[in-house]
């Protein structure tokens, strides 16, 4: 392996960076080579990946294949088509949100104008009634109170017949324009409802694509899990042997689900089991030195820990 760090270059199967580099990520970054630092077997840290994941990677490195691999390739290509379909339909959501907002505003508008028309109608009737019974002070006062709430028809209604006649005309024209506005609002509401229905239909098609994508992702994840489990089972006897050759207290049992004990020991055994050329970065204090780690793990090793970068 080759490792570049702070201008220096390290070579060989065993590199000890303890007291110098603490973080596995820093060591992985410093490693040269395309495949270095990838996969569940690239590091050993106190936070281990799931055992089946590490075992499946070890099995693959030993040339094990899984019959579901072809099905997974198929699923992956279907998934990429589904993902493309989702990407093509991307703006349906924004359009649907806009359509919902427009429909809600149009509905509010109609409600507001309906109330206004009703109020104006009542006021108009009261004004006409007030004209017929000019002496009825109560009606006149009620009409006054209504008027003062509305700036459009804020005219004084009193015993002056002509003034009252002018006010009634104003009120009539206000009423007429409110009625027109209501008609327009109702037209807009109908249009907004239709637009919303169209947007919903488009969104449904988009959701079909998203649902398909989700199903394929789930199916792929299930196949992966099945493959991992099968691969882990396939190498489990060899793993049990490897476990006996690494430090740590663990009992493998007869199958992966029965593994009990130190998960770091499991991870170390999976690394030992694997046939990888890439170095493994070890950030646990389980070996006397890097030479012993290299021998026990049967792989190139970079030891890290307790360095100046913390940890």
């Amino acid at each position, binding site marked *: 392996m080759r490792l570049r760090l702070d201008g220096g270059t390290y070579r060989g199967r065993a590199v000890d960076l303890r007291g110098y580099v603490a973080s596995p990520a820093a060591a992985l970054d410093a490693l040269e080579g395309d495949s270095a630092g990838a996969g569940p077997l690239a590091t050993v840290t106190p936070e281990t990946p799931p055992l089946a994941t590490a075992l499946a990677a070890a099995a693959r490195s030993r040339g094990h294949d899984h019959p579901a691999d072809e099905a997974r390739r198929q699923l992956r290509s279907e998934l990429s088509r589904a993902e493309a379909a989702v990407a093509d339909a*991307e703006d349906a959501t924004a359009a649907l949100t806009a359509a919902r907002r427009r429909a809600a505003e149009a509905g509010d508008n109609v409600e507001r104008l309906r109330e206004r028309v009703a109020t104006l109608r009542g006021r108009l009737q009261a004004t006409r009634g007030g004209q017929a019974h000019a002496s009825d002070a109560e009606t006149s006062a009620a009409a006054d109170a209504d008027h003062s709430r509305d700036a459009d028809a804020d005219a004084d209604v009193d015993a002056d017949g002509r003034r009252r006649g002018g006010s009634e005309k104003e009120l009539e024209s206000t009423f007429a324009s409110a009625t027109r506005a209501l008609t327009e609002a109702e037209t807009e509401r109908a249009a907004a409802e239709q637009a919303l229905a169209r947007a919903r239909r488009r969104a449904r098609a988009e959701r079909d694509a998203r649902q398909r994508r989700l199903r394929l992702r789930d199916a792929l994840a299930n196949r992966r899990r099945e493959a991992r489990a099968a691969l882990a089972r396939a190498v489990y006897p060899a793993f049990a042997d490897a476990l006996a050759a690494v430090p740590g207290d663990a009992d493998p049992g007869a199958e992966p689900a029965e593994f009990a004990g130190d998960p770091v020991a499991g991870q170390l055994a999976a690394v030992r089991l694997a046939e990888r050329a890439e170095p493994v970065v070890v950030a646990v204090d389980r070996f006397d030195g890097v030479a012993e780690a290299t021998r026990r793990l049967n792989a190139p090793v970079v030891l890290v820990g307790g360095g100046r970068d913390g940890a």
Partner: protein
Amino acid sequence: MLLIATYSREARTTLRNVCRSHEDSVVRRFGRAALLAETEWAAFLACRLRAKHGADVQVERTRPFNEFAAVRPAVREAAAAYEERDARSTPYEKFAAGAEYPDPAAMRDVEL
């Protein structure tokens, strides 16, 4: 009630977490969907899901189905009679044809 359906693993996970943290607002949970109570709080949760996951979240407002209010008696009676039919293999089209039961094509065109 508010029906929330999710269309991605991330949205499904968020919905699951929301349901777990706000059990009192959850009426029923399904795999990647849930029915929430019709409260402002549940609406707030739905809006959050929508804000976080956009098109991967669908929110619909549902209401209870009352077959005695929403549907004419002939439809209910046809359903009951069909489920009591003698030959399990008889399709409804055929079942309705000979009797006074509503025509399936006609029912498809009638909105509730």
